[in-house]
């Protein structure tokens, strides 16, 4: 069994380093592991590349890391509800790469599933095509999109069982399962721990999970 998988703050901090890349689950902070983000803030780690669906809000989600000046590059599908991210982008203190949401999901999946890339029609003739190769398959054009991985992933689960299997709550699922496949180390913040899960309903198999923080009782 991969360690005991229970996460404490010291262990988490030991895995952080300046300039690292971090995937963060969640969609407009629904399904975002806020406590792991707080622990990142406390650690002082900086110059981060953050991969997340969006920029969150100024005071929630990855927005907290952005507002604290810890993020140098953000890869996301939109930043509209975080005006701080918008003005930092304008001021060039934050590099933002905007990616269509479905393409972002596929790029992360490609990394997690060992693909060299995928061909998508999404974004043809738009700024999303800039700097990318266009390929024709059976007479139709596609953009070649490359895999996106990260040093670590921060995942929010509803339940983690004793083996480390995960499930998710409603639309808080979003990017969490795919990000759990695409990072070198996967840190999970779970609302609760259970003994075991119905093997038909596991969403993220325990073999993908490295460390688990349970919201209420662990770690502090």
């Amino acid at each position, binding site marked *: 069994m991969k360690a005991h998988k229970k996460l404490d703050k010291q262990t988490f901090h030991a895995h952080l380093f300046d300039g690292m890349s971090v995937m963060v689950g969640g969609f407009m902070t629904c399904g975002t592991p806020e406590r792991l983000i707080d622990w990142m803030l406390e650690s002082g780690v900086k110059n981060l590349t953050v991969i997340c669906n969006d920029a969150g809000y100024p005071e929630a989600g990855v927005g907290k890391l952005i507002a604290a000046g810890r993020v140098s590059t953000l890869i996301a599908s939109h930043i509209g509800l975080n005006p701080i991210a918008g003005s930092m982008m304008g001021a060039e203190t934050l590099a933002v790469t905007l990616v*269509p949401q479905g393409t972002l*999901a596929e790029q992360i999946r490609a990394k997690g599933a060992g693909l060299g890339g995928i061909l998508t029609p999404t974004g043809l003739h738009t700024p999303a095509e800039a700097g990318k190769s266009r390929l024709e398959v059976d007479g139709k054009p596609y953009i070649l999109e490359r895999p996106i991985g990260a040093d670590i992933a921060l995942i929010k689960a509803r339940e983690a069982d004793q083996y480390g299997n995960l499930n998710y709550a409603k639309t808080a699922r979003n990017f969490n399962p795919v990000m759990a496949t695409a990072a070198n180390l996967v840190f999970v913040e779970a609302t609760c721990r259970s003994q075991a899960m119905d093997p038909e309903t596991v969403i993220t198999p325990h073999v993908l999970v490295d460390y688990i923080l349970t919201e209420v009782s662990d770690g502090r």
Partner: protein
Amino acid sequence: MDAKTIIAKRIARELHDGDLVNLGIGLPTWVANHIDPAITVHLQSENGLIGLGPSPDPKDADPDLTNAGGQPVTLQAGGMYFDSVTSFGIIRGGHVDVTVLGALEVDAEGSLASWIVPGKRVPGMGGAMDLVVGARKVIVATTHTNQGKPKIKTRCALPLTAYRQVNLIVTELAVLEVREDGLHLLELHPDTTLDTVRALTEAPLHVGTYTMMEG
């Protein structure tokens, strides 16, 4: 009726029993209020569900159940949750029957600009680019003009959301279909005239037989 209601009611008539439909943020969400109660339309929210129901009472709001705008929603009977990969597989794979989106500009080729005003607003494309490419039918819901200036152009000037994917444009003045040779007038609102619509539309209009929109 105000402009939004005219547009939403007209678009609702494009939906058929059993359709899987994605309604964009803003005006498109109004369409849900006008769907014929005799049919069942399944609403998808690209953050991860099919079976989008009405907004809950604030006291019943579940932070784990939101729409693509981050607002609390509910799930209807028969609905289900899935992750973002599955969600966009459904979208890009052609399983969404109709998507309804707003526009900054839409043009005679069926290209759409809706996500960026360079130097001014950079919210990002979110799921819009995938939706416009993937859905079987793309309907643009928009007021005919913005501060008196036409939004329906010969060619979009703003960066595109998608190239040549729009099928139908519904405004408070007219219903326009995008065909190979450009925009065709399908319906005209009784409170306006053909000359007015022509004047407020930058793109040339093909006008043959057309009918009147609901008043």
